[in-house]
């Protein structure tokens, strides 16, 4: 069943609008929640007067900081424990640190009453001086957190009095010495902006008391177990008192890997002992949750005159916003999932710091630190090739890492599967590199050009991720697969079913899947770090292999055979290929009075390393030198994600990742007022690509075989994102000779760059 384009198991039901998502499960009698948001970027709450709100007909209660534990800082990052994220918040804060931060929650019989109540909460703030510029935030004397207000499980470089959320350094040899000895050093600094996730479904959570002192929560999240652990920790109740279920999720992209809202809803249920629901508007979802980390990345790439890379130094500063969720691991990925795409230089260094500012927090977003660095790293490679007069694809071919090669910053240390070189060669053919490179003039104000970029990512988190999966044989000869993994719309459930049915050697219809429920499914760290296929897939395969052995042993005993029979197409066959019994009859027999044997096997996977998938992206575009407008003509994405379990789902992942990055490259931008309020706070003010904006995307897979992956598979969720922005930058370099170092590349920025080039006496390359 693998390598087949089967449709998603829940696809038809979703298309027909059947009740699958959180909001579809909220009963009419549920209380509705409304969050009162802070109008100030940095303030201490002196007093909250809820009397007027409580007087509104239908308002049941108002939650404030007084209703949740304040003495124990947690992180809302839904990462596996012990989290690398800095613990710096509680479920409801007494100090607010960004415009929009929750101050109170109205709990009411109706949405209208909740909204009316929210307008009548009287808060007395003591204002503090905020700061918004992450490039000057460190050591500016305005610490966001005082003593005792933050906590870390292990030294992640957190220094609250200096506004440093976290720090991550990697060093291999003496980079300054080698750089000083290089023939040429490319030194480029890029600024990449915050980006909004804009999942189709905003954040939403429903929770009810089960009558036995426990809470049942149905929430649109990326990790049921981490959400359960974090929220119960924040509320000071035992984890077993909260059951977390993830139904179908309407997109996440990392934005639901921080449990912003679950704690508020659980607190409301604890206080009222009634079902409670919170459905966020688009504006609330954008202003309360999180963004991609804005970043400044300085890349110094030293090379010899023939283009051989000799030294690579990357300094990354990211804007964590008001809270520390995910910042440490974003820095981890910023170096670890970018630099090892090239053969290790004589010396390499990565220096990463995350700064606090009084802006909406940054968090996890597809790519997770890599897109920011790849924009600069691939930019430096483009610039170096341009400077040396070399074809940029040749420069990359000369320096990329190959299968079998080692890199000190790579998870696991060595590349065990890669067809990166072929990705580049084949992509060049498909885009028409030879004919188009680097650019040519179309008319007096239009230039056409090609550009490319390469990237890698990880598959799970090496040395940290662990999951289990359980498979049971039912009395009717069907199997049930229990997995705590979280399909976010990508098709993870379908992929796991394909792996299970492949391993069990039965039709997919014979395997049912139960997922994402802390009560009924085994532990899974959840859907982040591109994990489901590689990490959970391995655990599923292990469970199913155990099941095959158990069936064989049990049948051997039952039928008195010399050798255990094997399972093929729903039948048990002996060594000679003769039918011993059908699986269905066998299952009935072992479930009966004589045997009473339930076969259940739990598999496991501990991620030893995070094998990198690769993408080579190529863009053909036109730029109008009079207006600065960039028009994308087409894109070629060459992908090595190991064995492709489902070619259709994989292809759509690639197309979707590239489209998201096109928006990031050209126009998506989160803008804030001088007082820290988000200006681009809805879909009219924050533009994402529409159908007219995305050019044809040609996707081709060249499969390597990853020995540690299930059937040779690696990940592909995040790696698909990073190439579009640096490929567009390179094409614009080829078209205009200008380096566009600040995203998004708006027409204004292109025109300004052309103007500056002209003033310096430069000219267009064609």
């Amino acid at each position, binding site marked *: 069943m693998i390598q087949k*384009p089967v*449709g*998603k198991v*829940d*696809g*038809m039901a*979703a*298309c*027909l*609008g*059947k*009740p*699958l*998502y959180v*909001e*579809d499960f909220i009963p009419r009698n549920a209380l509705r929640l409304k969050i009162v948001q802070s109008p100030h970027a940095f303030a201490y709450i002196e007093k909250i007067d809820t009397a007027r709100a409580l007087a509104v007909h239908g308002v049941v209660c108002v939650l404030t900081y007084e209703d949740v534990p304040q003495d124990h800082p947690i992180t809302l990052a839904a990462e596996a424990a012990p989290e690398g994220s800095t613990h710096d918040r509680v479920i409801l804060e007494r100090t607010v640190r960004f415009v929009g931060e929750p101050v109170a929650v109205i709990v009411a019989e109706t949405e209208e009453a909740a909204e009316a109540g929210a307008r009548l909460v009287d808060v007395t703030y003591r204002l503090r001086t905020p700061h918004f510029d992450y490039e000057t935030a460190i050591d500016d004397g305005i610490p966001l957190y005082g003593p005792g207000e933050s906590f870390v499980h292990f030294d992640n470089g957190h220094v609250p009095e200096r506004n440093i959320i976290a720090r991550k350094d990697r060093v291999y040899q003496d980079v300054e010495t080698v750089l000083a000895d290089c023939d040429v050093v490319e030194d480029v600094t890029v600024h990449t902006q915050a980006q909004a*996730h*804009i*999942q*189709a*479904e*905003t954040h939403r959570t429903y929770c009810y008391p089960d009558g036995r002192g426990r809470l049942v929560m149905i929430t649109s999240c990326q990790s049921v177990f981490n959400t359960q652990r974090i929220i119960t920790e924040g509320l000071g109740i035992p984890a077993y008192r909260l059951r977390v279920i993830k139904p*179908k*999720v*309407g*997109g996440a*992209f990392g934005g639901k890997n921080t449990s912003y809202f679950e704690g508020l809803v659980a607190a409301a249920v604890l206080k009222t002992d009634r079902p409670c629901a919170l459905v966020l*508007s*688009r504006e609330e979802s954008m202003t309360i949750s999180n963004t991609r980390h804005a970043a400044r990345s300085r890349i110094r790439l030293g090379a010899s005159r023939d283009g051989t890379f000799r030294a690579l130094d990357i300094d990354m500063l990211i804007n964590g916003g008001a809270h520390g969720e995910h910042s440490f691991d974003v820095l981890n990925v910023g170096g670890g999932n970018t630099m090892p795409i090239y053969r290790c230089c004589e010396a390499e260094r990565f220096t990463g710091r995350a700064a606090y500012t009084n802006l909406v927090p940054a968090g996890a977003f597809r790519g997770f630190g890599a897109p920011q660095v790849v924009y600069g790293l691939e930019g430096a490679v483009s610039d170096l090739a341009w400077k040396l007069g070399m074809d940029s694809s040749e420069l990359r071919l000369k320096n990329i890492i190959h299968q079998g090669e080692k890199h000190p910053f790579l998870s696991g240390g060595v590349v065990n599967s890669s067809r990166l070189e072929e990705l580049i060669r084949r992509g060049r053919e498909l885009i028409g590199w030879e004919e188009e490179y680097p650019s040519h003039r179309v008319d007096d104000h239009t230039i056409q050009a090609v550009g490319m970029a390469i990237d890698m990512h990880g598959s799970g988190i090496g040395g940290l991720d662990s999951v289990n999966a359980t498979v049971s044989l039912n009395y009717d000869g069907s199997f049930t697969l229990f997995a705590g993994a979280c399909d*976010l*719309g*990508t*098709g993870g459930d379908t992929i796991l079913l394909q792996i299970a049915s492949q391993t069990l050697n039965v039709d997919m219809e014979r395997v049912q899947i139960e997922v994402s429920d802390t009560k009924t499914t085994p532990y899974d760290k959840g859907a982040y770090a591109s994990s489901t296929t590689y990490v959970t897939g391995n655990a599923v395969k292990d469970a199913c292999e155990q099941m095959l052995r158990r069936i064989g042993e049990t049948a051997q005993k039952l039928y008195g055979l010399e050798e255990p029979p094997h399972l093929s197409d729903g039948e048990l066959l002996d060594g000679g290929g003769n039918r011993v019994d059908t699986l269905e009859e066998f299952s009935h027999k072992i479930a009966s009075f004589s045997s009473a044997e339930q076969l259940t096997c739990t598999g496991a996977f501990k991620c030893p390393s995070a094998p990198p998938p690769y993408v080579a992206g190529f863009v053909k575009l036109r730029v109008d030198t009079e207006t600065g407008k960039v028009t994308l003509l087409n894109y070629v994405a060459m992908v090595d994600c190991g064995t492709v379990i*489902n070619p*259709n*789902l994989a*292809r*759509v992942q690639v*197309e*979707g*990742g*590239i*489209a*998201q990055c096109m928006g990031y490259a050209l126009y998506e931008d989160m803008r804030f007022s001088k007082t820290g309020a988000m200006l681009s706070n*809805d*879909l*009219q003010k924050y533009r*994402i*690509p*529409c*159908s*007219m904006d*995305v050019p*044809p*995307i040609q996707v081709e897979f060249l499969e390597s075989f990853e020995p540690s992956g299930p059937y040779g598979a690696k990940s592909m969720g995040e790696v698909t994102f990073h190439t579009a922005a640096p490929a567009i930058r390179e094409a614009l370099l080829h078209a205009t000779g200008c380096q566009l170092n600040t995203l998004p590349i708006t027409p204004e920025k292109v025109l300004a760059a052309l103007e500056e080039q002209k003033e310096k006496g430069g000219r267009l390359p064609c």
Partner: protein
Amino acid sequence: MQVSLHVNGRPVTWETTLSQTLADALREHGCTSVKCGCEQGTCGMCTVWLDGKPVLSCSLLLCRLSGREVTTVEGVEPQARVLASYLVAEGGDQCGFCAPGYIMTILAMEKEVSAPVSEETVQAYLAGNLCRCTGYRSKLRAAVKYLNRSQNGTV
């Protein structure tokens, strides 16, 4: 206040308020296909038909729709199922949240255009149906195959 209209072919009289949107009312009455993605008529996820034409139900007040005919995916399920099978076969449903709005747009388009339909035509029709997962290309492939299915002999 009450308003009487037709929903999915059936006459209904619904209790409403001056501020209730059509989207909220439809969901309240069990049409879970109607999804709200932006509340301001930008994303297209709440697309339904009003007298047979696609409209954004988050931006219409129910109280103004007396006597009108509203259609959701629930009301055209047989046709929706056919189009959905093309979308699922392409893997273009992804998270699925925008799929019902997409389906109502393409089924409306089918009534307005005749085969063969080009990818560019579909691309323009879909400009008001945002999708964050797929990058649209699979949705275009599915729609083109669906709209041209009679020509391709795949009906």
